[in-house]
């Protein structure tokens, strides 16, 4: 069964708690650990903040879905080549903490997917087996 929620909220940090709460609700269904939820929230939050900086957005669009025991968070569409570059470029160095590394080390996988003129970013996090 696919369970998904699509949200459109004002692009402002004050909307982040709402997004995190919804994310948390879905994470409960998957019996995520606190740490897994925090990791996914961190990745989504950092990406949204980066998008806010590079896109000049008025609203954030986020779709969250439970797919095959994993939580998928799809953000976008975005158009900024700069943001795309930051997400697709390998980390700036072996010891460079950039957006790419931060997201890569908090979710199981993430991908930049073409969408018309722009692109979507998909974050995937599954529950670690005990």
């Amino acid at each position: 069964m696919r369970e998904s929620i699509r949200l459109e909220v004002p692009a402002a940090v004050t909307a982040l708690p709402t997004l995190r709460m919804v994310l948390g609700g879905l994470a409960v269904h998957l019996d995520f650990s606190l740490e897994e939820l925090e990791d996914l929230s961190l990745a989504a939050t950092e990406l949204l903040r980066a998008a806010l900086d590079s896109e000049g957005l008025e609203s954030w669009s986020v779709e969250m879905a439970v797919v095959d025991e994993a939580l998928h968070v799809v953000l976008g569409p975005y158009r900024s080549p700069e943001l795309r570059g930051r997400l697709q470029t390998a980390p700036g160095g072996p010891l460079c903490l950039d957006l790419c590394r931060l997201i890569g080390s908090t979710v199981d996988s993430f991908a930049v997917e073409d969408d018309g003129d722009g692109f979507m970013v998909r974050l995937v996090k599954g529950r670690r087996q005990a």
Partner: protein
Amino acid sequence: MTPRDDRRASDPLDLEGLPGQPRRFHDDEDDAEAAPSVPAHAGRGRDESEKLDQYLLRRYHLHGDRKAREQLITMYLPLVRSLARRYASRGEHFDDLVQVGAIGLIKAIDRFDLSRGVELTTYATPNIVGEIKRYFRDKGWSVRVPRGLQELNIRLNKVIDELVPKLQRSPTINELAEAASATPEEVLEALETSQAYNSISLQASPNSEGGDEDAGLIDYLGGPEAAYETMEDRTTLAPGFAKLDARERYILHLRFFEGLTQSQIAERVGISQMHVSRLIRRSLEKLREEIGDLDHPGVSSVSGEQ
């Protein structure tokens, strides 16, 4: 060899080559005092302990002996822990309270007046308690959070600390809800509101009254960890990371470069998972404030490599 040289040769606390300027509150008349032979309070009688305190306080205040100061801090940390424990049920993390209490202890040691003839314990206790109380006073909810959620948050901190070692992993939201007698939704809400909680920065200067303004609180706490130092060896203090203390840099390194989980970091560093989580969030926030975003060229490296 002069009598003075002779004394130094037998002195377990070598004055030579120590950094820092001596703080001379009095004349050097007690210089001839012999060092008590046992370097800690454990197993000592009250008189002997007091003698050792006085000896170390003189070494520090009359000679600027930083090692004597460090020894006093180490000796009195159990007192700080004992006092911090009294306040641990108020929802603050015990480790945080110990750190704050340690600031009170350091202030007491630094401000101790040898001429007043009081024991260090007597002088330090109100300083430590005062610092902890000030911490509670200064620390508040930055947004209005219902009392019930604040209480649940306090309960959750406790429950998480209990469950992590028991389960040997991070608890699930459902497990937290069950242990805290709350619903998962309430747990999520309480966890989210905890992000609205203010905390004093451990980077803040502990002494705005003429102390070392550049030193953060963290610089005054505990001895150097070998692992932190190893990390330091590989770290170029680029502008962003220079704002983080050694422990914060170490934790970011473990999390984002070594790939350790928060629980694993907690175990390695010796703090709780919630504390690691808060430190990571706070460190990223600091970086963001400092450099705007995490990809600002040249400032996001935790090593010399760019």
